[in-house]
């Protein structure tokens, strides 16, 4: 536990120093939303239907960009060796990276989501609490899978292609459910999307557990 906090603190400190991740992902998010929302130029009637897909497309692409950095910085100067040489549980590294990714992704979302509402001229305020819940559930599931596979692909020259390739099919169920849930939140209310929320929660549970179990097996050598 202490190890998790130490690593999280260290990662956040590095991020604070360099501001690399948050800035680049926020910029990418803004660009994406601009292209998807503005270029599409929907009618006021059609606009609300676009919010959910645009938000989640932005979450996915900014997320893919963001999770890479987590393990990339450990490869510099063999810091991963430094971590593995410490008497800590390997799952602590996974948990720490997962937490940091969720945090940084949430920061990006705090920029991208309001912007989407702005461009599509849809009022999101009334839905904020439920929206936050859905975003959180989706982000945790995304990060659980993406963090694990970021570690898998970080050693590959082809990492920038392999990461989306490996992660996107696995994330399909999460994305479908997240979009459905988001649509419900902006419309009839979260209660109507019980199935979708169920998928989100169970996906989160399954894949965080999977990450906790599988990560030590791949960090071994």
């Amino acid at each position: 536990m202490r190890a998790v906090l130490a690593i999280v603190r260290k990662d956040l400190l590095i991020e604070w120093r360099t501001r690399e991740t948050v800035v680049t992902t926020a910029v990418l998010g803004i660009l994406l939303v601009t292209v998807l929302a503005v270029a599409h130029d929907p009618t006021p009637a059609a606009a609300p239907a676009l919010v959910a897909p645009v938000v989640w497309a932005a979450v996915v692409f900014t997320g893919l960009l963001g999770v890479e950095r987590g393990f990339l910085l450990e490869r510099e100067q063999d810091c991963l060796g430094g971590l593995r040489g410490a008497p800590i549980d390997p799952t602590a590294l996974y948990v720490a990276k997962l937490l940091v990714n969720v945090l940084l992704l949430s920061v990006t979302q705090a920029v991208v989501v309001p912007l989407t509402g702005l461009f599509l001229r849809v009022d999101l305020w009334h839905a904020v609490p439920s929206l936050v819940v859905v975003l959180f559930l989706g982000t945790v599931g995304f990060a659980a899978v993406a963090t694990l596979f970021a570690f898998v692909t970080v050693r590959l020259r082809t990492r920038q292609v392999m990461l989306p390739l490996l992660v996107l099919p696995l994330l399909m169920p999460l994305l479908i459910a997240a979009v459905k849930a988001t649509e419900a939140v902006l419309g009839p209310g979260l209660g109507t999307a019980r199935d979708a929320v169920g998928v989100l929660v169970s996906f989160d549970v399954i894949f965080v557990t999977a990450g906790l179990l599988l990560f030590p097996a791949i960090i071994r050598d």
Partner: protein
Amino acid sequence: MRGMEWFGALASAALVAVLYVALLVAPEAVGEGAVQRILYIHAPSAFAAYGCIFVAAGASAVYLWKRSPAADRLAASAAEVGVLMCTFVLVTGSIWGRARWNAWWTPDPRLTLMLILWAIYVSYVLLRAFGGDDEEIAPYAAVVAIAGVLAIPAIRVSSRLMRGIHPSVIAPRDGGTGLADPYMRLALWGGAVAMLLVAAWLVTVRTRLERVEREVRAVRRAADAAEGVV
């Protein structure tokens, strides 16, 4: 290789027998036309696909636990054959859909599941192909195979969330409802067995081939290293 030859012969015979029943003996489904017979390849392939996928995931889990190279080879082969089977399902499903409803793709939840699984195991194959050294990439590939199986429940439920304009497109097929005639059921279940045999044979052959391939790659690398070429 004697055993393998018998096995291969058996699998082929089963397949031929099923095709005979499927194409000639089973009556035509009412109102659907001859294309409906493609079901007898379509559904059994799905059966075999799931078989391969579960074998791949299971072997991957064994590999992560025991680090046995044999388990890894089995996983790699099963995943490849699984992709092949998934491709059969998707292609036959597509042809059937085109013939029946004039649509190359139907948002049927089962087909969506198969498509996503296809994508997951294709990514497994690509990871192995581009991930470098077999031994190095093995644990990572194993994670992909296992994650694929873990995603199945979520994919099933979420695919059902996606209700398209089409009504429940493909009538319930496996499980017996909708197939009244005993010959049809024979063709279907016989087909499942036959496809499983074919898949099992392919996996076994492929696993042995994989072993030889890896040895060749290792020898090549050693030769390069010895000569000072990296």
